[in-house]
Structure formats: structure tokens, C-alpha cells
């Protein structure tokens, strides 16, 4: 990072204290010894009573990992990660299978309450089924009956391995192979839990599905794995939210998400990421977020849409991608990435056009404040087979203050003359004139900042599920309040 080390003298300086979700829950946890080796991988698998195919998958990933090096091509500066100093498995002690909420440690329930996530069916968010993953283990999935009636499977991946091993074996690693990249291989070797979704043919999932991830154990990494399969003609909208307590140590989060959309199926995957971002002055602490997300439009006319609001983590390395294999399939990526304090984000997408007449849309809005760095990195690839493929990309950056950075790296690889690839980009500053104008209409400073930023990010916020759009808007406002003078 560039810029002088002098602390900001302003009275409204953002402090780590402002991180609303920075509490820690005292729950007895079962952790494995720190370190990573084949023995640990076997122990994780054994602790979870896994079938042999999964152990083999893990071992294959570990072998691949042993031959790889951590990637350093992203525009991110961070000290070397000591992979041997991390505990790769942490489970709340009582986490077995939960038939009802009564069996869950009340401390965990309280944590989710503090996060505003109602697991109690009485107080639930109407129309949203929630799977809550605490450290590495899924602790509760709500609305099971309603989903069951529709034939939808929504459970933790651990449960899916137990109840639907054939489905898991068929699809795990089919979109993100065990040895895809360093962090995906790491996840494949040691992942502990995550969510599993299967939507049967021609079913419109009757509820929004949602998973909330929470890192509580400060010594452990979090390696969850999500697998969503939308069978022919089905439809599902899924949202993940993330928070972690604030600690002075960095926490490693390396997740993998795989999506499969069959013919005429549609998956809408939304993320509101608010992991602890570290100390805003020094950059100490915070989550290192290295995530591999990829969707495969396997059948014709399939559609996968990624929407992300990235507002936390000290480091974000994340490129949710679409492989457009089916003819006429559609990929979308809508992103708002906000960095402040000393945060660094290197994020974007890959759209791989294979099928005929495949279409993709990329809308990226980067907001950088304070001394943060915000990078968009995207690849649009049109293969020889992708007759009539089209892409539209729009990358806008907004700078708040003078010491932040914004960079855009759009890569285009077109192997057909008839491909239509459009790219627009802009960089602007959060304007003092706009701020003044809104204030001159009686609107307070904070709300004015929120309105301007929401206006900038409008095209992305508009595609979030309604229940979460207001939450995301509020999150952007809160994050920026202290960065605008």
C-alpha cells in the first residue's frame, strides 16, 4: 500500500470498534491440531464419517495442492500466510444433527439473533429459508417441511453426503475441479461444511434460500463448500451473508461455490459479504477472503446470475464466473465492491462462451475510500464454437478521498470474428457538489452519502432480492459515513 503512515487526525475516524458484528460467542469448540498434512485431511474426513469417494476427493486435492504454489498475480499486498499455523477444523461441540432448534447450543442461537438472523421459525423472515454455518459447521436449516413438499433439497453439505451421497459424488468438483487453483485445492482437501441445494426438474423453489456464514473461532480458517444443482427447467434464488468477529489476527477464508444449471434452469446467486475488514488505520487483522465461485450453464437456455455486494474482508480475491456451455445460455455478473480503511479487493468475473448465441453481462461498481485499493479484473472469452456470442461489460469506479486506488483490468480473448464484445468504463469522484446539493435540501450528511452511493450502485442493488436490497444499501452507507469528510 502506498501513502504515509501518519494516522488520520479527524475526530470521526473509523475504528475497529465500529464493526457492528465484532462480538465473539463463547461456545465450546472441538478443534483439530494446527497444521496441514495428509493425516489432518484424513482426520477431517474421519471426524465427519465420510464415505470413501469423499476421502479420495480430498486426498486428490491435497496431492494437487502439494504440487502448487499460492498465486500472487493479483494486485494484493499481504504477508506470507503460514498454512501450518491454521486449524483446519473447528466445530461447535454440540453440533451433531439437529432435529429441532431446541437441541442447538443457546449461545449459538444468541449469536445469530445478534446478527439479526432469525432461526426461530416463529420470528423468521417470511419467505426465506436459512442455513446457518457457524465456524465450519452448519447448525440449523429452517423451513425444511415447506421445501420438502416442493421436492427441494436444502441442507448442509455434510448432511447431503449422508443422505444423498450419489448426488454429491456426481457433482462435487464437476465445476471447480479439486486441483483448479491453490485456494480451491486447499478447500477441496479440508472443507468442513457449507450448503447443498438440489432443485428437481421444473420446480420453482418456493422460498429464497439463504446461508449465513459466521467465523467465531479465531484460530481456525473457514473452508466451506457450496453446491447448487438446478435440474431442467427449475429456478432458484440463493443468498449468502457473512460476518466474523474482529480480532487482531487474520483469518483465512477459502470457500468454493459450484453451480450447475441444466437446460432451461435458472440460478440467481447473491452475496452480501461483510467479513471483518481489519483495523482501518493499520490494516491489522481482518479476513483474507480467497473464494472460487463458478457456475456451469450445462444445458441450453440455462441462466446463471451472480450478484455480489462486497463490503468487508481485509483482502478479497474473488472472481465468480460462468461457463456458458449450453446454446443460448446466459451469464450475468453484478457487483458492488466497497473498500475503505486499508482494505484491498481484487475481484471481477470470467465469462467463458462455449455454446452458440451465448450472452453475458458484466456490471461492476467499485467504490474505494480512505487508503484502500479496489481492483476489477475480468475475462471475457469467446471460444471458436460460440457462434454469435455477445458480451456487454460496464465497469465504473468511484473514488472517495485522495489516497485510495482504483484499477481496472479487462481481459478479452475472442476467437471468433462475429462475436460482439462491448466495454464501457468510467472513474469519478464522490462529488462534493452532489453532497452539498442534497444537504441543501435538508438531507443529513450520512443519508446524503448513502443516496449518492446507492445511486452509483443502483444497477446492482436493483437486481438483489428485495428483502436484502435495503440491507445492502444501509451497509454501504454505514461503511462510508466515516470516510467522507
Amino acid at each position, binding site marked *: 500500500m502506498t501513502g504515509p503512515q501518519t494516522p488520520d487526525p479527524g475526530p470521526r475516524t473509523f475504528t475497529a470498534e465500529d464493526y457492528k458484528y465484532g462480538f465473539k460467542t463463547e461456545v465450546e469448540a472441538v478443534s483439530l491440531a494446527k497444521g496441514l498434512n495428509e493425516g489432518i485431511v484424513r482426520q477431517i474426513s474421519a471426524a465427519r464419517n465420510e464415505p470413501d469417494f469423499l476421502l479420495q476427493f480430498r486426498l486428490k486435492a491435497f496431492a494437487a495442492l502439494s504440487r502448487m504454489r499460492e498465486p500472487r498475480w493479483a494486485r494484493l499486498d499481504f504477508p506470507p500466510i503460514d498454512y501450518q499455523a491454521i486449524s483446519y477444523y473447528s466445530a461447535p461441540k454440540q453440533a451433531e444433527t439437529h432435529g429441532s432448534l431446541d437441541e442447538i447450543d443457546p449461545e449459538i442461537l444468541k449469536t445469530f439473533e445478534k446478527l439479526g438472523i432469525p432461526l426461530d421459525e416463529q420470528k423468521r423472515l417470511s419467505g426465506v429459508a436459512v442455513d446457518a454455518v457457524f465456524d465450519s459447521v452448519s447448525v440449523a436449516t429452517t423451513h425444511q417441511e415447506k421445501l420438502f413438499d416442493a421436492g427441494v433439497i436444502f441442507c448442509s453439505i455434510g448432511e447431503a453426503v449422508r443422505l444423498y451421497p450419489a448426488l454429491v459424488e456426481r457433482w462435487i468438483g464437476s465445476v471447480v475441479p479439486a486441483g483448479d487453483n491453490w485456494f480451491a485445492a486447499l478447500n477441496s482437501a479440508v472443507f468442513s461444511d457449507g450448503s447443498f441445494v438440489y432443485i428437481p426438474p421444473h420446480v420453482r423453489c418456493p422460498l429464497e434460500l439463504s446461508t449465513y456464514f459466521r467465523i467465531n473461532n479465531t484460530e481456525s480458517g473457514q473452508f466451506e463448500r457450496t453446491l447448487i444443482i438446478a435440474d431442467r427447467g427449475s429456478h432458484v434464488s440463493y443468498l449468502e451473508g457473512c460476518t466474523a468477529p474482529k480480532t487482531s489476527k487474520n483469518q483465512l477464508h477459502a470457500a468454493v461455490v459450484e453451480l450447475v444449471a441444466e437446460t432451461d434452469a435458472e440460478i440467481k446467486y447473491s452475496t452480501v459479504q461483510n467479513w471483518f475488514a481489519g483495523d482501518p488505520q493499520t490494516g491489522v487483522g481482518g479476513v483474507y477472503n480467497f473464494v472460487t465461485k463458478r457456475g456451469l450453464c450445462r444445458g441450453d437456455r440455462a441462466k446463471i446470475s451472480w450478484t455480489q455486494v462486497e463490503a468487508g474482508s481485509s483482502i478479497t480475491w474473488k472472481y465468480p464466473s460462468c461457463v456458458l456451455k449450453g446454446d443460448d445460455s446466459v451469464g450475468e455478473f453484478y457487483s458492488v465492491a466497497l473498500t475503505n480503511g486499508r482494505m484491498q479487493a481484487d475481484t471481477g468475473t470470467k465469462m467463458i462462451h462455449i455454446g452458440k448465441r451465448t450472452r453475458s453481462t458484466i456490471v461492476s461498481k467499485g467504490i474505494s475510500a480512505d487508503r484502500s485499493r479496489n481492483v476489477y479484473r475480468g475475462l471475457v472469452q469467446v471460444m471458436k464454437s460460440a457462434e454469435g456470442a455477445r458480451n456487454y461489460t460496464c465497469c465504473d469506479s468511484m473514488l472517495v478521498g485522495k489516497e485510495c486506488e482504483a484499477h481496472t483490468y479487462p481481459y478479452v480473448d475472442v476467437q471468433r470474428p462475429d462475436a460482439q464484445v462491448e466495454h464501457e468504463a468510467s472513474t469519478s469522484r464522490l462529488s462534493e457538489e452532489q453532497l452539498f*446539493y*442534497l444537504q441543501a435540501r435538508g438531507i443529513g450528511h450520512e443519508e446524503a452519502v448513502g443516496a449518492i452511493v446507492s445511486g452509483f450502485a443502483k444497477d446492482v442493488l436493483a437486481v438483489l432480492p428485495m428483502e436484502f436490497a435495503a440491507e445492502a444499501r444501509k451497509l454501504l452507507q454505514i461503511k462510508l459515513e466515516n470516510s467522507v469528510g
Partner: protein
Amino acid sequence: MVIGMTATPDPGPRTSDLLQVTDLKVTVAGLTIVDGLTLSVPAGEVHAIMGPNGSGKSTLSKALAGHPAYAIAGGGAALDGKDLLAMEPDERVHAGLFVGFQYPTEVPGVNNAEFLRMAWNARRKALGQPEATAKEFAPILAERIRQAEAPEDYAGRQLNAGLSGGQKKRNEILQMYVLEPRLAILDETDSGLDIDAIKAVARGINGFRRPDRSIVLITHFQRLLELVKPDRIHVLVKGRIVHSGGPELAERLEAEGYDRFERA
């Protein structure tokens, strides 16, 4: 209203003065642009300020609105006896000030109706009154659009982004109707309007007049002053009011220009 001062004879501010600007000095980028300006506007009156380009008319209005780039180097300004200069820009609005800007700012992606509801609610909150939901606000806005004679599609537009110069001015009048200020300073709201629009805006301004409200029109054109009859006209040259007179002054300025005042 300041009361209890009536016993003292002169020279204090008249209690009926809604706006009281005294020896105001404003600097921009190190230059003194408003330089010892004094102006009083009694409640219920319409005053006009005219003056050559660059004389400091917009600087005066922006400084009164609290623009951070315009520094107060001396003097004072009170609205209804309250010290304007001590307030944040949004507090000035809640105290009853509205400035219609010469060049209204574009805020892309912000819906006009949503913005007006935010402004409405901010004021309601400051007054200790309940805020309006989008549903509750829709009929209120429809009524204000009618009163302001603003085009009906304004609710669905973006905040000035994508509006023409003239449309932006009409949007300012709509905002005035939503915010119901005690004092409205309209900086060249008539510039850039077509013939019909200028009449609509004039009707909007006339309809806004009330015994407890004052309006300051900054304009270059006699045309507006024929449609909205001012009680007083002030000539602003080089950062101060150099001459004040009745409505007949407009015709003289139209005929003679500012030459005489500039040389003085």
C-alpha cells in the same frame, strides 16, 4: 420572530425582517467575492437582485446555503432572527431557507420522487413529525407537482441527471413546493426557460407567496419581474448592494444597463 426588542428605538434589525444580511464578506479560493453586503427582506415581500455577470450573486446564495467552498470572512446573516451561518446546510433548510440554484447538480441513479421523499422526511423529522412512507408520500408529491405546475413525469425522473437545463430549473421550483421554506432565494430560475415554462414558473412563484414567506429573485431579465412583481429591486455590483429601489428600477436597468453603477 425576535420579540422584546420593540422598546428599543433603532438601529437594530426590524422584527419583520425575515432575512437580515449584515456587512457580509465571502471569499472563494482566496478571493473576496462578496464584500460587505447588507440586505434586509421583510416577511411577505418579494425582492429582486440584479447585477452584472460575476458580481457575486450566486456566491451570495451559495454562501447563505452553506456551500463548503464559500468561506465567510465577516459579517452575519440571520433568518427569522436565527444565525444562519452557525448552522449546517441541512439545518438551514430546516430553519426555513431554500436556495434554487443557477446550475442544479445532477445526482445520477437517484430517483426524483425518492429524493423528494428523503427531503420531505428530513424536514418532518426536524419538526418532530412522523415521516412518510413511499405510499403516503405519493399523493403529497402529486399535489405539489400540480401546485408547482411541474411536468407530471418528474416523479419518475432521475435527480436532474438526464434533465435539460430548463427542466432542472422547473425541478427546483417543485423542490421549493415540497420543502415549503419561509425564504426562497431563486438564482436565475428563469434563465433557460421557454416562453410557456417561464409563465408556469412565474405562476408557481406567485402561488407560493404568503404574508409569512419571502422570496428573493436573482435575475437578468425584466420579463420575470413583469410576471412576478417585486416589492424592491437591489443592484449588486462587485460584491455589494450599491442601489435599491422600487419595481420601476427594472425598466431603468433594462434601458441603461449597469454602467452607471459600475463606475460609481
